[in-house]
């Protein structure tokens, strides 16, 4: 064997072995090369090396070519591939994320994403907003939202708000609506405000493991300062991070997504739903709530409890739900992906919503409202489609 062939062997081999460190990672050895993953991947047709082909390149000892290619940045970590793999290979965390990590270490990342990562590190949020303004959204909300530092007492629920729900004007509306619901249910809660940092999950999936660890550690230290029974979050990405990833760093707290939390209290909520919402509603399963964490029914039950609503299903739903395109760094790869695809996943999804006859597209993840609202402006027949978080529908029905 020549020296260069030996070197090639070690790049492929060392990467291959690193995959086994991911939970169930060794299953990659059992790949059948059935190409279901590459087929179901929403942007698979644009990737030089979709998941299945990456594996075949590894087996052919040509993995350095994969690392030279940029097409992995078309991956939005939607878990569609992981969901359908007949050998249950953890493709998203155990392959796609790892490839992104390698490219990132080599400094090879799209500039949009670079900014988001640099902002996350400097300001604790990917939007580049001042950390001091993280709780500005609570101004004027009555009754006032309790800040853990100010109230200085234990609470029942620590509400982990998240980046977009704190800073993005559209999703601040959802945050205020959730506060209304919590008050209507007399829940004893508090938020961290300025002390909160990004959950880090999307940054982790975009390949910045070191950044994720810093953010998680920061949050972990703040959690330690306060007493609460559980964490509730309105963000499936924060939910995924705190539930599945933080414990690996020794940060372990009971956590639930708002849909589970409210579903548990459905009998308490029903009598409060006084206003009718007369509309056909299609519910979009967020990737990190549905496919990744198996929560499909609680949001649907909450929607069905609202008087007047006719819940319809889109052609892709539950495990086959079509990603909005925001996760895994996708929120900050929009320009990059648009240049190559000339179509946005959010537009596909909005088209499905229109076909289903829905008047309202219900969502449960903070990335979705701005993505679907923008898509609705572009898609024919979608100009009257309303995008609402399930929280907002409940709040409207409760009134106030």
């Amino acid at each position, binding site marked *: 064997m020549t020296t260069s062939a030996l070197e090639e062997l070690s790049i492929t081999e060392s990467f291959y072995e690193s995959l086994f460190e991911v939970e169930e990672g060794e299953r990659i050895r059992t790949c059948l090369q059935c190409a279901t993953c590459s087929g179901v991947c929403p942007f698979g047709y644009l990737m030089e090396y979709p998941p299945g082909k990456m594996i075949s390149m590894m087996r052919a000892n040509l993995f350095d070519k994969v690392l030279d290619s940029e097409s992995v940045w078309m991956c939005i970590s939607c878990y569609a591939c992981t969901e359908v793999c007949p050998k249950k290979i953890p493709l998203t965390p155990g392959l796609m994320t790892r490839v992104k*990590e390698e490219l*990132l*270490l080599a*400094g090879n*990342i799209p*500039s949009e994403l*670079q900014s988001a*990562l*640099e902002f996350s*590190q*400097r*300001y604790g949020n990917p939007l*580049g*907003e*001042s950390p*001091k303004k993280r709780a500005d959204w609570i101004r004027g909300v009555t009754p006032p939202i309790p800040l853990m530092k100010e109230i200085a007492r234990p609470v029942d629920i620590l509400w982990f708000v998240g980046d977009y729900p704190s800073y993005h004007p559209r999703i601040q509306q959802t945050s205020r609506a959730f506060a209304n619901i919590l008050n209507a249910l007399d829940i004893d809660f508090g938020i961290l405000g300025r002390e909160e940092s990004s959950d880090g999950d999307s940054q982790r999936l975009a*390949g*910045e*493991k*070191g*950044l994720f*660890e*810093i953010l998680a550690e920061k949050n972990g230290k703040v959690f330690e300062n306060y007493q609460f029974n559980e964490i509730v979050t309105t963000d499936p990405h924060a939910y995924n991070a705190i539930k599945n990833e933080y414990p690996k760093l020794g940060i372990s707290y009971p956590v639930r997504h708002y849909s589970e939390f409210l579903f548990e209290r459905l009998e308490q909520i029903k009598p409060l739903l006084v206003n009718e919402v007369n509309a056909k509603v299609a519910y979009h399963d967020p990737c990190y709530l549905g496919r990744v964490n198996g929560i499909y029914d609680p949001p649907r039950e909450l929607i069905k409890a609202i008087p007047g609503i006719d819940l319809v299903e889109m052609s892709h739903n539950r495990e086959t739900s079509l990603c909005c395109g925001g996760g895994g760094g996708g929120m900050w790869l929009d320009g990059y992906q648009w240049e190559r695809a000339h179509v946005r996943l959010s537009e596909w999804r909005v088209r499905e919503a229109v076909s289903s006859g829905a008047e309202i597209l219900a969502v449960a993840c903070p990335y979705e409202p701005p993505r679907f609202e923008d898509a609705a402006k572009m898609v024919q027949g979608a100009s009257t489609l309303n995008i609402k978080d399930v929280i907002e529908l409940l709040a409207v029905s409760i009134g106030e």
Partner: protein
Amino acid sequence: MNIVVIEKLVPDLVEELEISDTGTSLDMEWLRLIINEFDDHALEQAILIKESSDAHITVISPQFEGVDDILFTAISKGADRVIKLAGDFENDLNSHALARTLSNIVKEINPDLVLTGVQANNDLDGSVGPLLSEYLGIPYVGYVAGVSIENENVKVRKEYPGGLGAEMLVTMPALLGIQAAESPPRYVAISKIRQAMKTAEIVEMDVSDLDTSGGPPVNRMYLPESGERATMIEGDEEQVAARLIEIFKELDVL
């Protein structure tokens, strides 16, 4: 080839600026500092030179909050040696003082090229580059957007207003005020910076006697005040948009 890069930390404009009680300077207490963007480009340009030809890079920065982070980042991008100018710069470090202090240190290093950002947002008494080059007695070219080494000389592309550009051959040693590196400052993974923090060392040089003469006497520092001809439109997006449409109609442009 021996290269020195001068970096400094400047107010981060993401935070709101406040004037201190004296009314003549910024309130530093709540200020966040960020690397001067042009200095970041200077470092990137130095790294690019190192990647194409053999070079040793020394990065020097005065001690402000966050200096360790930027120096370790420089190491993880490829700098060989990093120096922190230790001292109490509470009363701000004007460009004259910084240039004087640097000139002694840079003379000792005796580099072929000194790169620094062409300007910084807090340069009240001019940029460090030209001042330092004068104290060192070496040529200075500013607004440089491209650098290549040609034997004993360095070829620079200088930007002029009006879209004009010039290519010049400069003898070394020389000091370049960098406007833009040939490619944007690269990303470096956090894990690499953390690694640098464990393995690399920051050399500390004490600079206690600062000669701050030449600095500007500030009579008053204040935030921009809205003039009388400006009308600030209040309200949420809907209200502002409605008012704007009214105004456009009044002015007959809509």
